[in-house]
């Protein structure tokens, strides 16, 4: 996208405003990617910040050979894998503790519902739907969850996934198929119970 390229070029020249605009353009997608992978807002927020920090530090390496979003999601994928590894390590040693997302921010500002007020019933049903999806995804193994994210939400091809994860394309296909079957069972089970 031309707009991304212009913002990147200005940001590389030291424009904080351009950088902020670039982040604002993509943060919702990165945050929701993080939310589905990490399963909770605190970790998703941390991951999103790590992703943008990684993007910022490596911005001078972006050559424009691929779309900025492709390049950014490669960083996001790697950061997510790292964070999951760290999280697993910490939880194994029982050291993991939740931290506040941002101690310095005014907590009232974090209430996105504060301005403007949206339809509460819509918010509730939306939140429930997302929570259900996160519950289904949470029942998958990390590898399965990651592949579902890349295939369903990021619309990657199996060849792209194979390259990103350094696995054969057939492994990616089998993993995705197994994940889909498990998700189908979970959804059916829940449907029957309700």
């Amino acid at each position, binding site marked *: 996208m031309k707009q991304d390229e212009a913002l990147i070029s200005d*940001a590389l020249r*030291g*424009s*904080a405003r351009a*950088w*902020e605009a670039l*982040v*604002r353009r993509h*943060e*919702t*997608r990165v945050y*929701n990617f993080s*939310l589905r992978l990490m399963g909770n*807002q605190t970790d998703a*927020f941390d991951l*999103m*910040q790590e992703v943008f*920090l990684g993007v*910022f530090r490596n911005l001078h390496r972006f050559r424009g050979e691929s779309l900025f979003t492709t390049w950014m999601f490669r960083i996001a994928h790697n950061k997510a894998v790292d964070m999951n590894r760290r999280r697993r390590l910490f939880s194994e040693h029982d050291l993991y503790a939740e931290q506040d*997302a*941002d101690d*310095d*921010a*005014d*907590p*009232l*500002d*974090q209430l*996105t519902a*504060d301005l403007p*007020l949206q*339809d*509460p*019933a*819509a*918010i*509730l*049903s*939306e*939140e429930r*739907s*997302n929570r259900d*999806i996160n519950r*289904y995804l949470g029942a998958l193994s990390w590898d399965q969850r990651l592949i*579902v994210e890349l*295939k*369903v*939400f990021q*619309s*990657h*091809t*199996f060849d792209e996934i194979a390259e990103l994860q350094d696995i054969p394309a057939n492994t990616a*296909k*089998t993993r*995705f*198929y197994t994940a*889909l079957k498990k*998700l*189908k069972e979970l*959804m059916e089970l829940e449907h029957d119970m309700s």
Partner: protein
Amino acid sequence: MTCHKTEYLITEYLEVDLTARQRAILEQHLQECAHCRQELAAAQQTQARLRTWQDEPVPQWNRIPESLLKVEKPRKLESFFNWQLAPLAVSFLLAVAVMMNVKITNTPDGIAVAFGGEAGVSESLVLEQLARFEAQQRQEQEERMQALTVRMEERQDAANAQLIESVVSQFGESTSRSLEQVVAYFEEQRQQDLQVLQSSYQQLADSDYQTIRSVQQLATYVQYQAESR
């Protein structure tokens, strides 16, 4: 009935960049195989359910890394002034004033400021000024706390009113399902508000406690200076 081609067919079918020829081959098999048809429909349904995900808004955060802020000077005063640093700034100014023995006197000719010299102002006056400042800080803290509570209450009232309105318009009358939704929403809202309120109180209290504590320390220091003379 099973088919050994199901996995292959589904994963291929869900590819985003299938050619027309590839698609035609898959369609051909689907016409002949009921099992694959059924499995493909289920897989598509599962994907569709996942794609009902509604993007959630990003919480407020600091988007600009510090290194970039150093490059670009802030355009607006408010962008670099952090109100949480106010107590520290006040404490620093007071400390400098005490250390340099600054005397401020209101004479008939105007205000006189003396550094380290005698200006006819006793330590008791400094102590009195500090006490007044402390009282003022306490009052401001109370006002801020009250404002925060009012803001939270207004927000909650507006959300509640809107919820009731939307439920009534959506369901016409109170069904058990709508009531469940209302209760769930209220519960969630209350929990969220409580957490935010608690955290806001804590932040305000921490900041003001820091100021008051600094003032008290300065008062003790001034008193000690006075006694040691």
